[in-house]
């Protein structure tokens, strides 16, 4: 139980007045980001990251991770009240959340959503508390081939578990890797793919890509839909909260199942969006009220919200223990660690105990603070959505431009952001997934380094990736994932087609 001792120490780090204040600020900013179209977890954190360069790392990560929790909570508000998912992972919440709001039970739906979010996150944090140190200890023995195999598994999982065309996933990923290669080569010191441009020597910063792809791209998309917010009124009555809480224990099976689905999808880079859909689908199949799903069932809100939050939280486990983020937002946080001078990976648990356990402790407290904040301030955030889009849109673009500029104090980056915005819009419309591209851009250099180091030590012999049982099984698993679309097709041919009714509604992300 050494973890409990470390955790208590973590609580001691977190519970300074300054950090608690930052926690509240982070949650409120996060909910705001989750509610507004065009600002999401990933680019919200990316925009605010430069502001934290001068803070101590522990305070900075507390604030930024709280923004992430806030964004996870915030997505539910727009889904339930306005039938507009603020984030891709809250699409499944609209299926039963909005019908409930139409029936006048918005308060109950919101309470159920927030509470299940909290429960999902809580289960995931408990898992992180005990599993992350073990994984990190195990990973300390990893050499370059093992690390490269894990990177390979991460990227192949996108192909194996992603929705949509495997070719498009491969294109998005390789584009990310190619962009990451631009600039100075860390090993030989040669300039690569800069074509003589001094602006390109810096390389493509993934923060700029995230702000453009998710921020500007999202604004262009919502503009096309001609956004007009016509929502249901919501006030959360304490009595409704208590009543809903009394009802929730009945769905403990759904909560537990959804948490597990979420944790699994979060650790493997499946992500929160597929987790929420999978969990909704499972709940619909297994619940005795399954037939009534889609007409406003509390259980239909509980399932996706629990899973999305559990997945969003678990995505931080591989980021902390291995230095491999499970989601774009975790990737941005990882970028933050590098900027604050911390080397993410298994050594973090040995060298930066205060930081790691402070972060884990802040996950417990941050989610509790989040639950309290959202339950009390829903009307405020709902009224923000009634601000006309012609004010919100330019302000968000200004915020994105400022965010892009502050990364390197370079105007070129602001232009780049616009280009990434158009790419994001076109890619979203053509169902190219953005998450693998961002992750490839973040991990490109590190994946390349571990690949080159393994190749060096093995003198170019590819069998190094099967040189011991551990690395061999990870590599084999990765290749199975990569070929999974083909394997699945063969299985389907042999067995006859099976249709997935929710597949059409699930966004590619």
């Amino acid at each position, binding site marked *: 139980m050494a973890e409990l001792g470390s955790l208590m120490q973590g609580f001691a780090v977190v519970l300074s007045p300054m950090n608690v204040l930052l926690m509240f600020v982070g949650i409120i900013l996060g909910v705001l980001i989750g509610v507004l179209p065009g600002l999401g977890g990933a680019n919200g954190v990316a925009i605010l990251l430069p502001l934290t360069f001068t803070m101590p790392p522990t305070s900075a990560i507390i604030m930024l991770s709280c923004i992430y929790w806030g964004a996870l909570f915030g997505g539910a508000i727009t889904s339930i009240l306005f039938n507009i998912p603020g984030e891709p992972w809250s699409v499944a919440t609209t299926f039963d959340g909005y019908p409930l709001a139409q029936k006048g039970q918005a308060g109950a739906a919101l309470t159920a959503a927030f509470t299940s979010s909290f429960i999902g996150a809580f289960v995931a944090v408990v898992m992180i508390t005990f599993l992350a140190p073990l994984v990190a200890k195990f990973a300390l023995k990893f050499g370059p081939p093992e690390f490269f195999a894990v990177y390979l598994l991460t990227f192949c999982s996108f192909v194996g578990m992603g929705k949509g065309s495997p070719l498009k996933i491969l294109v998005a990923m*390789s584009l990310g890797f190619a962009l990451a290669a631009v600039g100075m080569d860390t090993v030989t010191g040669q300039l690569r793919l800069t074509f003589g441009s001094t602006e390109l020597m810096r390389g493509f910063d993934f923060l700029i890509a995230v702000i453009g792809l998710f921020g500007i791209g999202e604004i262009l998309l919502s503009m096309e839909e001609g956004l007009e917010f016509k929502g249901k009124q919501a006030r959360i009555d304490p009595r409704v909260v208590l009543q809903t809480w009394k009802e929730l224990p009945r769905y403990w099976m759904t909560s537990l199942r959804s948490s597990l689905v979420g944790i699994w999808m979060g650790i493997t880079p499946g992500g929160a969006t597929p987790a929420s859909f999978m969990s909704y689908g499972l709940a619909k199949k297994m619940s005795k009220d399954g037939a009534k799903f889609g007409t406003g069932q509390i259980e239909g809100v509980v399932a996706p919200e629990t899973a999305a939050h559990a997945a969003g939280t678990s995505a931080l486990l591989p980021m902390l223990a291995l230095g491999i983020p499970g989601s774009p937002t975790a990737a941005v946080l990882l970028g933050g660690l590098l900027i604050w001078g911390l080397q993410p990976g298994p050594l973090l648990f040995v060298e930066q105990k205060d930081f790691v356990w402070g972060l884990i402790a802040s996950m417990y407290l941050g989610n509790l603070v989040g639950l309290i904040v959202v339950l009390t301030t829903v009307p405020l955030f709902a009224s923000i959505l009634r601000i006309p889009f*012609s004010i919100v849109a330019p302000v968000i673009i*200004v915020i994105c431009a400022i965010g892009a500029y502050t990364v390197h104090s370079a105007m070129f980056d602001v232009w780049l952001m616009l280009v990434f915005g158009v790419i994001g819009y076109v*890619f979203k419309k053509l169902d190219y997934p953005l998450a693998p591209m961002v992750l490839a851009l973040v991990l490109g250099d590190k994946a390349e380094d571990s690949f*080159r180091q393994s190749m060096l030590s093995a003198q170019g012999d590819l069998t190094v990736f099967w040189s011991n049982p551990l690395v061999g099984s990870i590599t084999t698993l990765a290749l199975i994932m990569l070929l999974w679309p083909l394997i699945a097709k063969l299985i389907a041919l042999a067995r006859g087609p099976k249709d997935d009714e929710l597949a059409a509604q699930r966004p590619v992300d």
Partner: protein
Amino acid sequence: MSPSTPPSPRDGIRNTTVEALVAAIILGLGLVTATESWRLGARWTDDGPGAGYFPFYIALVMILASAGILIQALRSRRSDTDLFVDRASLRQVLQVLVPAVLYVLAVQFVGIYLASALYIALFMVLLGRFGWVHSLAVGLGVSAVFFVMFEVWFKVPLFKGALNPTAFLGY
């Protein structure tokens, strides 16, 4: 698609066209990356793999995958008549994109604060049909908040533009 044709719901850019175009661009990028990586040394050098080793294979994946998408798009040209974007939506999108480009251009000259205030105000007047006074107030207000936040609190200087019209503020 001359401007005189009456807009119908089926009017706009075809999905397969954009699909093929994007795949072709990525294919081109892949070829450029591959040749450039080859030039840098994509093979084994005296001291291990060359600088272009990894990017070269990445470029190969890019070329093969985008060629696959291109072939799929060209094949389904007849059967898939879905629209990428219809005319009305394209207009909406350009209504945001074009001012955004002009805004960044303005930032280049007059700096972030002034350009943002003008951009927000003009956006509100032209697209939101707000009054001038109201719009200018919001624009200047938002800019002022950012100024205080960045220059005063966080001490992160933002871009003041080539002409630096806000120099009189002393930041």
